[in-house]
Structure formats: C-alpha cells, structure tokens
C-alpha cells in the first residue's frame, strides 16, 4: 500500500523554490523525470543534466516519476534542495501498455495483454519481427515453419477459431490497422502489445477474434538527442543431416529391387516390363569393373555455410516542443541453400510537435524495400529440396565435359535434374516495397478532454519475377523455359477520430472514456503474365515475349476493394485503485458481408480487483501485488475475402478449334445472408507479485466459443457448384497461460533472473454444417492428411495404422488382401479383408498439447549471459517425405532407412521389401509417416559485454555493448526429418501444421554484434 494519503491544503501564501538533481542507481543523471506537486497538476521535468527547479507550496510534497522507475513521494518541509536517486522498477509494476486507441496503466487493466519491449526483440539477431516474437508471450504461438531467408512466419493467438475465415491476428502498427509485421524491422519497434482476450480486443470488433498485436515504433524523446548503431554479422550452417543411400548402397538396392519384381509382378516380369540398366552400357558412370565412378553427396553440394549482416542506424531526439526519429536499416542474408537470399532496406522518419498548447501534431513514414531470391519453390514437384534427397549418388554434379549430371542419365528413373542445376537455373525474385504513413492531430480541448484525428495509408507493391530454364526436365523443359512476372498493388487508407476523457473525481474515482468513429478502405489490383517456349535462356522474365507461347491461362488480373465503417467506445472506471471496470463496444459495418447483415455490434466487459490495495492484505507482507480480473465479450472475424455474398456470372476461356472463346456462366452460388463469425470469450486472470516483486506471476484461464462459423460448406455437386460460404458450425478453444518472472539472485554485482511462460490450448469442433458431415480441408497427400470432425480438434491427422510388414508365416493372411510377405501390413479397421479409405482414422494431432519457454539471464558486472529453451510437446508431424524416399526404389534415390526394409532375413521391418517401381503397390498416409514432433530447442544463447561508462565517456559514447550469440544450438527430438517445427504446405490452407515434404533444412546460426549509443 502506498503512503502519503493525508489531505493536502494548499495555501498559496507561502511557497518554497526547490531545486535538485535526479540520478539513477549508478549515479547517472536522469533527464525527463516528471516532478509534480502532489495533488496538483503543477509540474516540470528534469533537463539533460537531471536538474529541476519548482515552486512548492508550504507543507507540500513532490512526486517524482519516470517510466521504468519506482515513483517516489518526498515531503518538502523546509528543504530547498532535494536530490533523488530513482530506483529502477525492473518488474515494471506500473508500466503503461498500449491498448487500442490509447494507453492504460497495467494495474488498471481488466483484460489479458501481453507485452514485449523492443530491445528484447533484437536479442535474437533475427531480421523478421514475427520470428523475434516467438516464445515471448504465453498464448502467442509463432510457427517458424520456413527456413528460406526472408520467409514469413505464422502467428496464432490462443488457438485456432476459424476454418475458412482468417486465423491470423490483426496487426496494428502505430494505429495503422491491417499492416504486416513480417515487413517491419525489429530495430524500429519500441514495444509490442498483444491483446488476447475480449476485454482488450473487442475494441477492434469485427477483426478482433484472432487477437490483436499492437506495434508501437520508436519515437524521439524531447531534449535527448542520441545516435545509436546496432549491428551484427552471423554465420549459419545446416543444423542436421538426413542420410540417403551412397553410390554402392544405391546399386545394391537397385539390383535387389529388380530381383524382387519377379515376386511382385510375375506376369509383367515375364512380359519384360522390368528391364534393369546394365552398368557396362554406361561408361560415363561406371568403371571397367562395373563400380560407380561417382559418389555424390547432394546434401553437401546444396547446403553451404552462409553469412548475414544487419545494420541499424538511428537518430533520435528533440527540442522542448518537437521530437524526431530518423532511422535506417539494412539486412543482407544468404541462405544455407545455395543461391537463396534476402536483402532489405528500411527507413523511418517520425516527427511529433506541440505546435500550440492545445495542439500536438505528428506523423511518421516507414518504408521497406526487400528482395528475396527463392530457389526452393514448387514443393511437391522435383524441386531443389526434393532432388537433394532424390538425386542419384552415382550421378556427378557435372561430367568432365561440363554437362550437368541428371537422374535422366540412368534409365527408368523419374529423371529429375540435379539440385545444383535447379538452384542455378530456376528462381523467383520477390520484390516488395511497402510504405506506411500516418498523420495525426491531437487537440487538448480541456484539461481532461482530448480529440485526436488520424489519417493513415499503406502502399504496398509486390513484384515477383520468375524464370525456370529450358533444360530442367519435369519443371520447365516440356515448356522450353517458363517465365512469369506478377505484380500486386495495394492501397489502403483509414481515417479515425476519437475523443478521450480522462477524469479524476476526488481521490477515489478515475474515469477514462473514449469514443470514436472510423472509415477504412482497402483496394488492390494484380496482374500476372506467364510465357513459355523461349528461344534462349538469355532473356528470362526481363523479356517475357522472348517466349513465343503465351497461353491465355497465363494472363491474369483482377481488382478488388473492401470498406469498413465503425463506431467504437471504451470506458474505464477505477475506484480507490482497487476496483476496476472496463466496458467496450464496437459497431462495425463491412462491405464483405451480405446485403442483409452489413452491421454488427461487439461488446465486452472486464472487472478487476487489486486485492493488494486492500487493508486486509497488509498482514501478508510477502505479497506486494495481487490482482484478479475477469472479462467477457464478443469479437468478430470478417476475413473471408471480398464479394462472397454475391452470385457471379464469370467469364472463362473455352477451347474451340480456332482457339479460345469467351464463355459466360454462373460461377459462384453466393449467399446474401453472410455475416461475421463471432467469438464469445471469457477470461479469468490472476496477477501476483511476491517479495517486493522478486517473483511475479500471471495466470490466465480462457474459454472461447466461435459461432456462426464461416464455413465453405459443401454443396451437392449436382448444383454445379462445390461449396458456398455459410455461417454454420462452431468451434471452441480453452486454455491456460502462465507467466513467471523471477529474480533468483540479486547480490552485489550479480543478478540471475528467469522468465518462463507456458501455455496449453485445447481445441474442439462443436458443429459443422447442416448435418455435421466430416470435412477434409486438405492438402491431399496420397490420401487425406487431416480431418475436421465434430468433437475433435482442428488439425486431427487422418490415416491408416501401419502394423509393419507381413511375415513369411503370415502369407495366407496377406493373401486375403491380395498381398505378399514383404508388403505393408495395415490394420483392417472394418475387418472386411479390403484395405481402402474406410480403414483410416484419426491417428494424431498437428498442434501441441503445451508449449513452454524458459530464459535465464545472468548479469555480472559488465557481462550479461542468457540462454533460452523452448519446449513444444505433444504434437505429431507428418513426415510425408518418407513416401518418396522409402516407397519408390529405382525411380530415385532413397533414404538410408530402406537398408532396413523387409528381407527374408529381416522380417520385422516397417519398410516394405524393396521392389522395382511399377509393381502393384500401395503407398498411403499412415502412422509410419507420422512421427512424434515434440521437441526441446536451445533457441538462443547470448553473451554480452557492456563497456564501462568511465571508459566510454572519454569517447563521448553513452553506451557500448558487444555480444556473441547462437540460435538453434541444440535440438532434442525423436523426429527423423530435419526439424519438427516445419510445414511445407503453407500455401495449401491455413489449418494444417507439421506437414513435412522435402523442407528447406533448418540452419544453426552464430552471431557477433555491437550496440553503440552516442
């Protein structure tokens, strides 16, 4: 409980001029500290040297406060000089957090808001801000599925509560709604706040259902000019290896597979369908003794150590009335897969100025230009990653005469090109330019009442240039080279206007009210052209008409736009700093919804009780903070794409003998009754601080139920349509989130702190469509991979149960299935002696049971050391790669696991007996492909050294720190692929996770860097 509650009397007759200097615990002067006469609005701030001067009425007291420090109240009595040493409030009891349309003291919050400061984000030596968020906040899951440089990451808050509508959270960057955090330079970020529950997110109404991530970028501080330079270089290499057959092993399996063809297809064998190649006919590949000349390790050819560098330079500061921020960033990252890479320039300018006592204006511009070279596209086809495993070891990279080696050089194979050839002759350059601009005017109408009007835009262009050369079989050889150029352009604007009323009534009541309205419009256009039939590889996409075939299907363009019109309000009431009430509501209208349902209302309520402020808690001296809070409310989800409520007549091309003609017909069923998904959410939270906040704990329990689920509900095909969006179905998510921050040891120069967060979410589908029929959302991979079924979670893996292989003494049983000893033995679920689609069931889960992150930080004098472990437990990964590398001998190279395939002398095998491809053989999604994907990763390890201030002051440097760090240094998992945190089907739907088909291997990274502030 705070002191100095007594009533104040201000006579105004007698006043004392008080001066002083304010310093931090190290004796460094603190500029910008607020000095306030208690109980009044009279105040000042300290200057650059930490000095202040203020008139105080007799008997008055001064309140010293500064963000990040504990506030102090000092009775003036007759002192004319009061020097204060501010104590850092490392546990940030009273930090201010950004919520929608304003800020709130954390102690006044009734909702669940997670917060990360910007300096934490740049610890990771990671240029992607979303990836930097991984593991920072309980309940905020970042799925870092792609390892190619510059790739985006997925982010999910409190599970998945939609099937066909969006599942991404809403990003709000400096108030600009709908931005993309993947594009923001982490070095420009001041703080990230995540609004997780309804009480906090409902202010974003129809777009708040998946949670809201608020990003505040850095601004200048008044009267504090500084220059900072942050930089690192890093070296990455492939963290793991997956073994394939070497040349001799390949030949052994090849020959055995052909021997076995007689067993598995005697008739075809007799007809001569299985003709193995004779090494004697291939002197380029085999020596006179029939031994392979080459033994190429393609994994080592494709993955090489790669460098990255990152530089950020920022100028920040200001005068008494104006502050500025100018910053520049540069990233250049080479990928460990040859020829992949990413380069990004960022720039930011922000300006804020109090141009009148009643008017503050400001704005910022944030620009990003990036280029990314992707060489691992075409997942599923014979692309680089796949050929890294499937290129034959007996084939050279190049022959002595310079020709590329290719699987086509060995007859009967699928004939893919070697991966180095592909990586050099097929690429997409993705060029993105983004500009965020926002402008605001803030009118101070009275002491308590402010009006703010903002205008913001996002301008985004994306141009992809693609070429795949004339010599790449199975990719672009049939087309004689393929080039494409695609452009998208997006222009978004918003205008928001809101009044904020901040009123204290007496000592007991505080009211914060806000009311506003906004308009938003989003427009996009895109155009793409593809051509084929190039006369030479010289031209590529730069001269797209050097390809003499431009099919009409290769020309595409469309436009779209969407609008939102909203009214919103939030009221916070605090009684005695103990009892908290928040009420919010947003009334949203969206162009995306049906004519009959354009507007909807999203309310929420939150209650909080700061128990530690109560007198009866005084006896519990160890408890310095205890708060319980609860909230309920509703948020919406409108991310269904545009125009879905309309019945379209579409045009399409119809081939006639003379070429294409235009056809017109109805192409969408349309649903004029479409409305938003709404998620009702309940949250109960406890915040506890013990032993002077040395142990801080926050726990949240939540329940979410999404109704009116926008479902691409299947229509009978007999209508001529496949599906229509309908509001049918519901899904629930419930979970628990725990956060602990402890100071374990704080002794002299040594401090050890631990930050731990842990969360669990359980998801369940409650209803689906009119008759709760199962839905297979895809992707399809030799059978359905996952199922949506009432009573089961989203991401339930669907497949057969592989019991192993049939043994010799089970030959009669196998024969009932038309199989032989050596064939795969699946569980016959319906016992009808046929293995078909009815023998599949739910065999696993894609999403984890729980996720935890623990970071330990040690500080000793000028050294800091930290390490972070991340644990993801109770999830399965579909190692779909096993289909191609265990079941296709003679078509391509195999994993070394086929050495352990069934043989008469090795009957207890999971992998079927090897056989030449073409014999009747089933290969389907089953439990053998599904592996336990649980893992523990040493995510980050960092050692830093801060140069002592007395040395730095000689060079006019405020702060200098050098660091070494490592990412992904250790991985503990039973998963046999490169990494269990993976999904190579990112384009094939938003629900599936952990589908692994020839991924880009995960790097391990070592970095060295510096942070300098002048």
């Amino acid at each position, binding site marked *: 409980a705070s002191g100095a509650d007594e009533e104040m009397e201000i006579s105004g007759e007698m006043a004392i001029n008080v001066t002083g200097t304010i310093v931090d615990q190290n004796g460094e002067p603190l500029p910008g500290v607020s000095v306030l006469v208690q109980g009044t609005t009279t105040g000042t701030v300290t200057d650059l040297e930490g000095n202040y001067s203020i008139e105080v009425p007799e008997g008055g007291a001064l309140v010293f406060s500064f963000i990040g420090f504990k506030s102090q109240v000092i009775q003036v009595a007759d002192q004319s000089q009061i020097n204060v040493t501010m104590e850092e409030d490392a546990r940030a009891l009273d930090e201010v957090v950004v919520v929608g349309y304003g800020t709130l003291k954390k102690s006044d919050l009734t909702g669940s808001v997670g917060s990360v400061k910007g300096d934490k984000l740049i610890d990771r030596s990671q240029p992607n801000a979303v990836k930097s968020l991984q593991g920072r906040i309980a309940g905020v899951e970042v799925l870092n599925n792609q390892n190619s440089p510059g790739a985006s990451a997925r982010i999910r808050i409190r599970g998945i509560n939609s099937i066909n509508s969006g599942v991404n959270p809403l990003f709000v960057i400096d108030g600009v709604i709908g931005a993309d955090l993947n594009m923001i330079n982490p070095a420009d970020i001041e703080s990230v706040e995540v609004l997780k529950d309804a009480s906090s997110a409902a202010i974003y109404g129809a777009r708040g259902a998946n949670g809201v991530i608020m990003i505040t970028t850095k601004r200048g501080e008044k009267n504090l000019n500084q220059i900072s330079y942050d930089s690192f270089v890093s070296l990455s290499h492939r963290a793991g290896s997956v073994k394939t057959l070497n040349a001799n092993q390949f030949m052994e399996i090849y020959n055995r597979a052909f021997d076995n063809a007689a067993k598995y297809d005697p008739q075809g064998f007799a*007809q*001569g369908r*299985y*003709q193995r190649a004779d090494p004697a006919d291939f002197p380029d590949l085999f020596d006179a003794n029939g031994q392979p000349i080459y033994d190429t390790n393609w994994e080592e050819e494709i993955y090489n150590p790669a460098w990255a560098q990152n530089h950020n330079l920022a100028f920040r500061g200001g005068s008494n009335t104006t502050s500025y921020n100018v910053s520049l960033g540069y990233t250049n990252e080479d990928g460990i897969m040859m020829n992949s890479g990413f380069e990004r320039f960022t720039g930011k300018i922000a300006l804020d100025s109090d141009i009148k006592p009643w008017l503050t204006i400001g704005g910022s511009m944030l620009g990003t230009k990036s280029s990314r070279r992707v060489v691992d596209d075409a997942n599923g086809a014979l692309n680089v990653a796949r050929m890294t495993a499937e290129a034959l070891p007996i084939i050279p990279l190049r022959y002595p005469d310079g020709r590329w080696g290719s699987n086509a050089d060995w*007859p*009967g*194979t699928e004939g893919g090109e070697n991966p180095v050839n592909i990586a050099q002759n097929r690429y997409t350059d993705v060029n993105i330019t983004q500009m965020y601009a926002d402008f605001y005017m803030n009118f101070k109408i009275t002491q308590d009442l402010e009006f703010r009007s903002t205008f913001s835009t996002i301008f985004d262009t994306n141009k992809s240039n693609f070429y795949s050369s004339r010599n790449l079989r*199975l990719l672009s050889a*049939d087309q*004689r080279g393929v080039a494409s150029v695609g452009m998208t352009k997006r222009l978004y604007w918003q205008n928001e206007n809101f009044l904020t009323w901040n009123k204290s009534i007496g000592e007991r009541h505080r009211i914060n009210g806000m009311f506003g309205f906004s308009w938003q419009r989003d427009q996009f256009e895109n155009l793409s052209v593809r051509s084929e039939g190039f006369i030479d590889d010289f031209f590529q996409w730069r001269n797209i008409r050097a390809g003499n*075939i431009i099919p*009409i299907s290769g020309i595409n363009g469309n436009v*779209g*736009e969407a*609008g939102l*019109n909203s009214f919103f309000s939030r009221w916070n009431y605090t009684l005695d700093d103990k009892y908290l009430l928040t009420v919010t509501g947003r009334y949203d209208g969206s*162009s*995306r919804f049906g004519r009959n349902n*354009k507007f909807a209302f999203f309310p929420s309520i939150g209650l909080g009780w700061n128990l530690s402020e109560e007198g009866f808690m005084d006896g519990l001296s160890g408890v310095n903070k205890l708060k319980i809070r609860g909230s309920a409310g509703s948020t919406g989800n409108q991310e269904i794409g545009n125009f879905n*409520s*309309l*019945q*379209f*007549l*579409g*045009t399409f*091309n*119809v*081939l*006639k*003998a*003379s*070429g*294409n*003609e*235009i*056809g*017109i*017909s*109805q192409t969408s*069923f349309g*649903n004029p009754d479409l409305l938003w998904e709404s998620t009702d959410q309940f949250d109960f939270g406890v915040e506890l601080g013990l032993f002077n906040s040395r142990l801080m704990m926050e726990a949240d329990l939540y329940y979410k139920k999404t109704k009116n689920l926008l479902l691409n509900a299947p*229509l*009978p*095909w*007999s*209508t*001529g*349509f*496949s599906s229509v969006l*309908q509001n049918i179905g519901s899904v629930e998510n419930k979970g628990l989130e725990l956060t602990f921050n402890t100071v374990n040891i704080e002794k002299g120069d040594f401090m050890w702190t631990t930050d731990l967060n842990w969360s669990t979410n359980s998801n369940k589908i409650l209803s689906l469509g009119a*008759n709760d*029929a199962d839905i297979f959302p895809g992707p399809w991979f030799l059978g359905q991979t996952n199922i949506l079924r009432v009573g089961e979670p989203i991401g339930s893996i669907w497949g057969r149960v592989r019991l192993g292989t049939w043994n010799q003494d089970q030959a009669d049983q196998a024969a009932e299935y038309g199989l032989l000893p050596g064939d795969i033995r699946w569980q016959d679920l319906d016992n009808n002696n*046929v293995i*078909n*689609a009815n023998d599949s069931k739910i065999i696993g889960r894609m999403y984890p049971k729980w996720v935890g992150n623990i970071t330990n930080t040690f500080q000793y004098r000028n050294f800091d050391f930290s390490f972070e472990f991340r644990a993801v437990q109770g999830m399965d990964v579909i190692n779909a790669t096993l289909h191609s590398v265990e079941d296709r001998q003679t078509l391509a190279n195999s994993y070394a696991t086929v050495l352990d395939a069934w043989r008469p002398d090795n009957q207890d095998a999971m992998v079927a007996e090897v056989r030449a491809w*073409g014999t*009747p*053989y089933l*290969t389907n999604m089953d439990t053998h492909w599904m592996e336990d994907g649980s893992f523990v990763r040493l995510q980050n390890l960092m050692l830093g050294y801060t140069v002592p201030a007395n040395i730095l002051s000689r060079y006019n440097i405020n702060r200098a720190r050098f660091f070494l760090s490592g990412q992904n240094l250790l991985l503990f998992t039973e998963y046999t692929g490169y990494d269990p945190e993976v999904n190579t089907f990112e384009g094939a739907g938003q629900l599936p996770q952990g589908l692994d088909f020839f991924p880009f291997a995960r790097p391990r990274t070592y970095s060295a860097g510096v942070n300098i502030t002048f």
Partner: protein
Amino acid sequence: FLEENPGTLTTQADLSSPEAARAFVTSIYANLNVIVTGSGGWGGNTLSLLEFMSGKADGVPQTEAFRFNQLTYDSQSFYIDTYWNGLYQGILRCNVALEQLPQFSVLSEQELTDYLAEVRTMRAFYYFYLVRMYGDVPLISEPVRELSDVNRPRVPVKTIYDEIIIPDLLAAENSDLAWRRTNGEVSMGFIKSLLADVYLTYAGHPVMAGSQAYAASAQRSMELLDQVGTVYNLFPEYTDMINPDNKNSGEFIFQVQFDKINRTNPLTPVCLPTFAGISVYSNEFGGLVPRQEFVESFEDGDKRVQEKQYFITEYNGETLGGHYIYKWFDQTAVDEDARSELNFSVYRLPDVMLMYAEASNRAEGSPNGMAIEMVNEIRERADLDPIGSMGMENFEEEVWNQRYFELCFEGKIWFDMLRTRKVRNDLTGEYDNFVGHTNVFNSTFAEKNLLFPIPLREMDVNSELEQNPGF
C-alpha cells in the same frame, strides 16, 4: 460506403450484345473435356476409368488401376467424383444458358432456335453420361439458386431419358445447324450420332425400350450415313487419325478440342511407356496400358493390331516391353515439343456405321445389306475378309467385335458392356454374360458393377440421395 462493386458480372448484370449471347452458348463446352481429363494420381485420366473397368487395360500403381481391374473400387475411388462433378457443372452451364438466351432480344428466332439446339444437345450429352454411369440421378433442368433447394433426390433413369435427354435431342434435330461445324461445335452430325447412341442404349439395358427404339436409332444413323461422301469420309489409313491436319474433318464427327498452346492432349504422355525415355516428355506415364490378352484376341491379320496402327511395341529401336496405345501418338509432340494437339473423338464415322448395323439388325430381325456393308467397310480397312449374310445374333456379335477392335480405348467398350450386359472374353473370344464374367485379373463382375457408386462426398452432403446397391 459499404456497397461492393466487384467490377465484374453478377447474375443481376444487364447483358444485351449478340456476343454475350454467344458466350452463354460457348460456356456449355467448358466441361466437354471431363471425359478426357487428368484425375486421380500420377498418370491418371478420366478416360482410363472406363478402360480399367472393361478389363482391357491397366496402368501404373498411382492410377489405382488395380482397384478397378480387381473390382475393389468404392465410393471414394478416383475418377468417379470427377465425372459426377464435371458433368453436373456442364449441366449447370446449359441450364444458365437456357435461362438467359431467350432474354436477348437481338437474336433472331432462327438464331435463338439454333443456339437452344446447341445447348440442349450438350445437356443431353452430359445427362447421357450420368445415367449410364450412375443410373438414377437428380434431375436438374434450371439453375438452383436457393440454399433451401439444393438437395435433390434421384430420379429413375427412364424419366431422365424421357424428360430431358430425348426431348432435348428431338428439339435439337429441328434446328438449322450444319452437318459439320469445323470449329468443333454441336453440329447436326453430332445431334444425329448422339440420338442414335441414346436410342440404341435406351433399347438395351436397363430401360429395354425394345425394337421401336432400335428403329429410331437406325433412322438417325442412316440420316448421318447419307452424308458420307459429302460431309464425312472414312480415312484411308488409321494413322490419318493422328495427323493434326485432319482434326474435325474426314471421319471425325464430334471431338474434344486440344491445341499446342491453350490445352494439350493429356493422353499422349499418359499412353507412353513409363519413363522409357523415348520422347521429349519429362513424364512418360504409362497410365493407360493395353492388356496383352486383349491385344492378342484380335482376329489374325487385323491391320489395326499391327505395328504403328493402333499400337506400338518399339520406338526408335527401343523395345517397349509390350503393346502401347498409338491412338494419340502425336509425333511432333513426342519427338520435339511435348505439346500434343490431337483431338479426342466423341463420335467418329465407324462408331455410327456400327451403331446402324447393330440397331437395324435388331429392328428388322436380321442384317440388311447396308448393315453388312457397314461392317465390311470397317473390316476392309483392317485388311480382313468381308463377311457374308448371317443370322441376327451372329451378326450382332460380329458388330460388337468390330466395336471392341475399332473403338478400343476410346471410352466406348464399357458402355457397350453395360447396355448389352455381354462381355467379350479375351481368352475364349466368346460373349459371356456380364454378371459372372471373370476378367483377366481373375475378378468377376457382379450386379453391383453395372453402376458406379455415387461419390461418397455427394452422399454425405445431399441427404436425399440413396447409394447404389452394393456400395
């Protein structure tokens, strides 16, 4: 502020130009290629379903040919849903066109009549496939627009014939459409061929409409055969059919169009031996491969079974290890550019000639001179001796034989088996009853194999449907 302006057409759009009217007609052809389109796994094609079922072909494992060869297919098997979905999408387009066309005041009465004839013929075509494959099916003759109206029950096969297929075609017969339209559109030749086929099928199983239907069929074939020498001509050589210059001419009556740029013929690489390396195609699928038993069952001396007529066994000195289909072997595509432009025939002259022979034989109780001549023209091109006079049943079997050999792998044989309920046994050369016939994969047809199952997804979604027996 919240109104959507998509910048494209909705069903409320106001269209009036003659070109827009034509575009509604054009749309009906968009699903014609459902009978010859990639489907299922690697190397799969909808055409292959009918050939796998007939037991005369198999394919690589990914086509799941073995499911159909071994008769273990079910309502989730490949291809079955592609047909259902594609055929009904074609029907939707026809229904939309039938709804919209009368609203175009720019069309003259004759233009409108001809357009409607074109549309109704295609609707009959799509329904004709549906009833032969699935039996009773939902009858949809107008676009379905309301969500409350999407679940439609199955309607008996005969009703579909009587209320849609036959009336549509009889109406189309009364148009002024030309006997041949070289742009690949519905022609009078196609209308007559289709109607001949419809009546021939209607006369057989399962409707068994009898001799009137045979006569009606023979009448339409005859009308088309009257155009032989002027509009239609048998090609002198089988290989004329794989000359791209001959598309939509000669003996071709109605074809699915392919070209080098917009849509290439998928069958060319599908029928090449798997990864034999004989072509410039990256993928040589081996997805549809004749069974040796069938190839060996051709009459001795039949030209069609000789090298590079209907089949090849070697190419450029490479032995292929068996017979492969040569019917869509586009030489330029195989050797040079991997872009096959050959069309796929829905009807060609020998089909109609044999339909005439079969239908007139049944209608009249014995083969007439014209019927015998038709069979002999086909035999003559195959270097086979002519037949003389025969009894009705022997003649019918000879007609069927010629259909098996002449039209093999063109999606015809399976439907012949269904309507005749007879199967030519490759090993004996005799005609077995369908139910009880054991194919070369040692699997035996049962009653249930007369119809494909309704796709499981459709059963799940439409509560009004009942599954075919046995599935």
